C-alpha cells in the first residue's frame, strides 16, 4: 500500500502544480485589470441582448436606459465588479477550471460556436493524437538507437551519432517543420504542407484515415526528428551508466547469455531513469507540439494558441494555458505511476 501512498503524494504535488499555475494565471489577470475587462465585456454582451429584447416592449428611451442601468448594477454586483479584483479570485478560478470563459472575440469552433470551451475542447483530440503518436515513435526509436550506441560506445559510429543527436537538439522544432514543408511538400511534393484532411475529405472511412495519416506524416516527422536526438543521447548515457555497474559484470560472470544481460540487467534497470527522461521531456514535447501545429496549420490547440495571439483573444489563451497544464499534469501522473511499477525501489 506504500505504492498508493506515494502515488497519492505525487498526485498532490501535481495538483499543487496545477493550482499554482491557476493562481499565477488568475493573479496576473486580476492585477493587470484584464479580468475586469473580461467581465465587463460579458456584462455589456448581456446588456446588448437585453436592450434588443426590451426595445420592443419599452418605447420610452429614458425608461429603457433606466431599466438597463438597473440591470447593469445588478450584474456588476453579481460578478463582483464593484469590489476589488482579489475578492473575485475564487470565482475566477472556478470559471477557469470549468472553462467557463465566455465567448471568443473572433475565433469560432469548427461547428460555428464561439464559446471558448467549444473551441478549445474541439481541438483537444487533434493535439493529443499528434503528441502521443510522436512521443511513442520517438521514444521507441530513441530506445533502439540509444541502446545501439551504448553498445558501440567510443566507436566512430557512436561519435557520429552523438554529433547528429546534438544537432537534432539544436534544431528549433518549428524551423525544422518549415524546412520539411519547403523540401518534402513543395520541392518533392510527397506530403501536403498543411491541414489535417484534404478538402473535401474522402467520405470512405478507410480513405479518410489514410488521408489523416498522410497529413499527419510531416508534423509527426518534425516532432520526432526534433526530439529524437535528446532521446538517443539520454538513453545512451543511461544505458552506459548501467552497463558499468558491478551487477552487470556479475551477471556476465554468472554465465548469463549476452541477450539476457542486455534485457534484464541493462535495459530493465535503465528503464526507470529512461522513463524519468520521458517525464522530463514531456513539457518539451508539448511545447514542440504548439510550434509544430502552428507551422503545419494542424487544427489543434497549439495552432489555436497562435491564432488567438494574432487575434488578441485573451479568453482563448487563458483556456489553452490551463488545458495545456492539465494535459501535462495528467500525462505526468500516468508516467510516474508507470515508473513506480517499473522500479521496485520506489514501490516498497
Amino acid at each position, binding site marked *: 500500500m506504500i505504492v498508493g501512498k506515494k502515488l497519492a503524494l505525487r498526485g498532490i504535488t501535481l495538483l499543487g502544480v496545477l493550482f499554482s499555475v491557476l493562481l499565477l494565471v488568475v493573479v496576473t489577470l486580476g492585477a493587470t485589470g484584464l479580468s475586469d475587462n473580461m467581465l465587463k465585456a460579458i456584462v455589456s454582451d448581456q446588456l446588448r441582448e437585453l436592450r434588443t429584447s426590451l426595445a420592443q416592449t419599452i418605447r420610452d428611451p429614458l425608461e429603457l436606459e433606466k431599466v438597463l442601468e438597473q440591470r447593469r448594477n445588478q450584474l456588476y454586483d453579481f460578478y463582483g465588479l464593484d469590489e476589488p479584483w482579489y475578492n473575485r479570485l475564487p470565482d475566477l478560478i472556478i470559471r477557469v477550471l470549468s472553462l467557463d470563459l465566455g465567448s471568443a472575440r473572433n475565433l469560432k469552433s469548427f461547428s460555428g460556436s464561439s464559446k471558448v470551451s467549444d473551441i478549445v475542447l474541439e481541438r483537444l483530440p487533434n493535439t493529443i493524437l499528434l503528441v502521443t503518436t510522436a512521443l511513442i515513435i520517438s521514444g521507441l526509436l530513441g530506445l533502439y538507437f540509444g541502446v545501439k550506441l551504448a553498445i558501440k560506445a567510443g566507436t566512430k559510429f557512436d561519435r557520429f551519432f552523438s554529433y547528429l543527436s546534438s544537432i537534432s537538439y539544436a534544431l528549433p522544432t518549428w524551423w525544422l517543420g518549415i524546412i520539411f514543408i519547403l523540401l518534402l511538400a513543395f520541392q518533392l511534393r510527397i506530403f501536403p504542407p498543411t491541414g489535417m484532411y484534404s478538402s473535401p475529405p474522402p467520405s470512405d472511412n478507410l480513405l479518410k484515415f489514410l488521408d489523416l495519416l498522410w497529413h499527419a506524416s510531416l508534423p509527426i516527422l518534425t516532432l520526432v526528428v526534433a526530439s529524437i536526438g535528446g532521446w538517443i543521447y539520454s538513453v545512451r548515457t543511461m544505458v552506459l551508466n548501467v552497463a558499468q555497474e558491478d551487477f552487470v559484470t556479475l551477471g556476465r560472470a554468472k554465465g548469463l547469455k549476452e541477450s539476457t544481460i542486455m534485457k534484464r540487467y541493462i535495459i530493465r534497470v535503465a528503464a526507470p531513469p529512461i522513463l524519468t527522461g520521458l517525464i522530463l521531456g514531456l513539457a518539451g514535447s508539448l511545447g514542440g507540439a*504548439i510550434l509544430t501545429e502552428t507551422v503545419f496549420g494542424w487544427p489543434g490547440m497549439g495552432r489555436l494558441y497562435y491564432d488567438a495571439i494574432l487575434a488578441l483573444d485573451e479568453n482563448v489563451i487563458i483556456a489553452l494555458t490551463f488545458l495545456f497544464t492539465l494535459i501535462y499534469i495528467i500525462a505526468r501522473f500516468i508516467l510516474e505511476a508507470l515508473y513506480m511499477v517499473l522500479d521496485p525501489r520506489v514501490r516498497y
Partner: protein
Amino acid sequence: MFKEEIKIFLKGGSGKVGLALFTLLLALSLYVIASFPLDFGVRYWNNPSYWADYPITVPPAWYNFFSDNPKPEHKIISAEEKSFDNNLQLSFRFKQVYDDFPSFISLRLGKFTLNSLNPLTLELYLKRPDSEFILLKRQILTSSFEGNPPFNLYFDEPLRISLTADPDVSFEISSFLSRKYNFKILQTELLSKGAHVALFGKPEKDILIPLKGDYEIVVNLKLSDPKDKVGEARLILGGGVYGLMGTDSLGRDLFVGLLFGFPVALFIGAVVSFLVALIGTFNGIISGYMGGKSDTLIQRASDILANMPLLPLLIFLTFVLGQKLWLVMLILIVFGWPGLTILIRSMVLQIKSFQFIEAAQALGSTRGRIILKHIFPQTAPFVFAQMIFSVPGAILAEAALSFLGLGDPSLPTWGQILELGFRRGGIYSGYWWWILPPGILIMITAFTFLLIALALEPLVNPRLRRIK
C-alpha cells in the same frame, strides 16, 4: 593552472570546433555592439521610412551567380547638378543592362534650404535610348513656414516621388508608347503593374520587354531665389536582388537584421544561463547543506516550478504582461533554476558526508567558509558544464516565443525575422533567403554551446564519479 583540463577539453573535435565557433560568434557580437546603435531596433529596424528606398522581398545579390536570369541589382544614383538662371537641374544617368526590369524606381529629394516661401515648380524628364526628353510630371511644391528665412524643408523626411506608382508618370509614358510604337496600354493597367515596366520597356508583340541602353532622368526645379539649395538628391532603381542576404517584405536589409541578432542571442543565452546557474547553485547548496526549513521550502518551490509546462506559461505571461525581452528572460530564469537546484542538492548531500568537510567542521570553520572553500569548488565543474548546456535552451525558447509572434518588438531577433517570413507566407512563396538563414543561425549558435558542453563532459564526469 587548468593546463590538464584545457588539454582534455581540446582533445576531441567537438572542443576545437565549439571553441572556434564560439570565438566567431563572440567576435561578430562585439563588432555589432561596437558599430550599431543600441536603439537600432526602434530607430532603424522597425522604422518603415528608413527602409523605404529598399527593394521589397528580393533575394541576395549573389543569387545572380546561380540564376539563369540575373536580376538587376539595386542602384542608388546621385545627381549631377547644373544651375542656370533660377533653374536647378539634377540629372541622373545610368545604363540599363539587365534582361529584367528594376523592381521599382523612385526619386528622393531632401534638405531643401529656401530663402523665400514662393512655390517651387518641379519638372521630371526622362530620356531613353530610343527618345528625346519626355516630360513625365510637373508638380508645384508649396510650403508654409513661420519666422524668418532661410527655411529648412524636407529635412526630417525627404520628398519621395515613386515613379512606379505615380499616375502622371503612368499617363505620360503610356501616351509616349502609344505615339512612338502605337502600343496601347491603359494608365490604370500600368499603375497596377508599376510604371517602371513602361519607363524601361519597349513593346514586343503585345507585351513590354526591357529596353537596354543609356537613360537619363532630369529633375528641373524652378527656384525663386538663386541661393536656394537642395542638399540631397538620389534616384533609386529597385533591384531584383539586394545585398548579402536579401530583403524582407518591408524592404529591410536582412543582413543587418541577422547581424544584430548575434549579440541579442548571446545576451539572452549568457544572462539566462548565468543567473540560472547562480540561483540554482546557491539554492541547491543552501538546501543540501543547511537542511531544515529552508531546505523544505526550496524543495517544495523547486518541485512545483520544475513541474510547470514552460512554453504555455511563457505564452500566457508575455501575452498578458507585455512583449518585453527582460520579462521573457526573467520567466526563463524563474522556471530554470529548480532543475539545477535539485541536482546540486543531491550532490551536496553526498559531499557533506566527506571526511574533509567533517574535519573542517570539527576544526570550527564557519558554514560560509565551508561552502565557499569546500562545497562550491566540488560542484563548480558540474555547474559550469550545466551552465554551458543551458545556453541553447534559453536561445531556443526566446526564438520559439518570437516565432509565435510574442517577440520584443524593440529588438530584432532571429526568431522574429523568421516569424514575419512565415506569417507573410514565406514558405509558400519560396522566400528561402528570408526563412533559411535565421533558422540556420539559431541552430549554429545552439550547436556551438552543445559542442562545448559535449567536450566538457569528460572533465565533469570523473569528478562526479569520484563524488559517488
